[in-house]
């Protein structure tokens, strides 16, 4: 099962909790906004992804679970 994270940039106001929780995967640009790769979330971070989604202060982070691309 592949996990993909997507961010709704309209809702995002750059709190940065997601980058704090998963710094190996999500980076921050110079203005505090997350850089979320389009790749699958690595296995060892898989349990952090749902937490990042629920902890986002503006609920801007979305999790897609899929078997296909």
């Amino acid at each position: 099962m592949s996990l993909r994270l997507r961010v709704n940039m309209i809702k995002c106001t750059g709190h940065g909790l997601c980058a704090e929780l998963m710094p190996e995967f999500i980076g921050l640009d110079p203005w505090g906004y997350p850089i979320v790769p389009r790749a699958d979330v690595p296995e060892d971070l898989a349990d952090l992804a749902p937490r990042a989604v629920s902890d986002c202060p503006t609920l801007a982070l979305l999790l897609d679970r899929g078997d296909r691309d």
Partner: protein
Amino acid sequence: MTLATLGEQEYPPDDATPATWSSAGQPRLPEHAAPLPRLLAGLAEGRSRSAGLEAHERRFGPLPLPEDAWVDATGWNLGESGRHRRGRRSRAHQARSARRAATRLIDVAERSGLTGRGGAGFPTGRKLRSVAEGSGPTVVVANGAEGEPASRKDRVLLTRAPHLVLDGITLAAFAVGATRAYLAVHDELRLVAGLEATIAARSVAGIDPVPIEVVGIEPRYTASEQTSIVQYLNGGPALPTFTPPRTHERGVAGRPTAVNNVETLAHLALIARYGDRWFRQAGLPASPGTALVTVSGDVAFPAVYEIELGTPVGDAVNRAGGPTERPRAVLMGGYFGTWLPAGLAWPAPMSHPGLREVGAAMGAGILIVLGESSCGLAETARVLRYLADEGAGQCGPCIFGLPALADAMAELAFGGDPTAARRVAGLVRLVEGRGACRHPDGAASLASSAISAFAPDVRWHAGRGACHGVRRPPVLPVPSDLEYW
């Protein structure tokens, strides 16, 4: 004329010379030139008047809709509208007939290979089919809210050939079973009033079963985007929204909505009359038909021209009278587009796949020629500043990144900062794909293509600062706020 005779109507003989503002230079069209113009054929009537309904029907014939088509709250029906009450042909039967006929129209649209003329180039038949298959009543939106400052083709169609656009809207509504239709245009009094009068004249003649509502949109760059218009129609601001859901799934009032550029719908109006084989007589097998292009910049006769898809860029420029000085580069696809060095651009075929191959994009058919006495970096810096100001202001990377990008390009063009080029490249990577809409992507593509197309200038500027090209009057139009009012 009903859909049963689809494609059998003969195209009127091409007695008109290529419309309007033609050129001092000899246009060099491809050998197998099919009759041109098509969309702009009605313009032979006169440049200052739009073709009235009579003239339109004389040239192209009446709207090819089945005569017994009618619409109620749940959708389209074929059959005498009173009949179902007497049970002779039930409502459900009439609705099914309409669906079958609509499917035939969509088949023709798919076979024709018509693709969207608003910039994305998505196959129109496929879009109509996916909306038609959506559940419940659907909506058609015609997008004539041309946000690109360097584009005029939609305006030309709306003012000079509105009946083709309106025919297309009605046909699209029939195809997807829409009960509501909107035409989004710039909120200019004369434009809106003129279109409403045209629609009223058609309504008196009983042409359009679904009333078409004209909606004025502020002429801002991001307001003309598909999701912006849908959000505006839903009572919100004219700003892009996050997708999914896509508009063909959930759009106006939550219904499946087909949003098409007005030029695409005008082509549909002709395809419904003359058929898919006729449409494919122009253009290339992979990119059939004709398209309207706005040629501007350092050319003798900047205007809107109709070309066959696949026409080399140089030929299109020559149709516009040719360049007024030795060309340096061409901006393909508008401010969302890419710079190509003139040598690379000239033979490139104007079509989506053709331009992709040389690293550019067709966009909404915009072609701006830059002569060698201008500075491409300065022009790009000005446009980037405009794009930064024109952002929707919703996403952080765009709010902060685009002004930074514009600053860096300006420092490269006017200030001679040797690190500026590297900063531009870094910022391009930072803003690309990081907004809710494609606005930052367009700016990124413009900036990065400028760096590569004007690479010698980048090296010169980095050492010495501004060249004397920057003092030349601007070639790329950037509207000041005064123009909005």
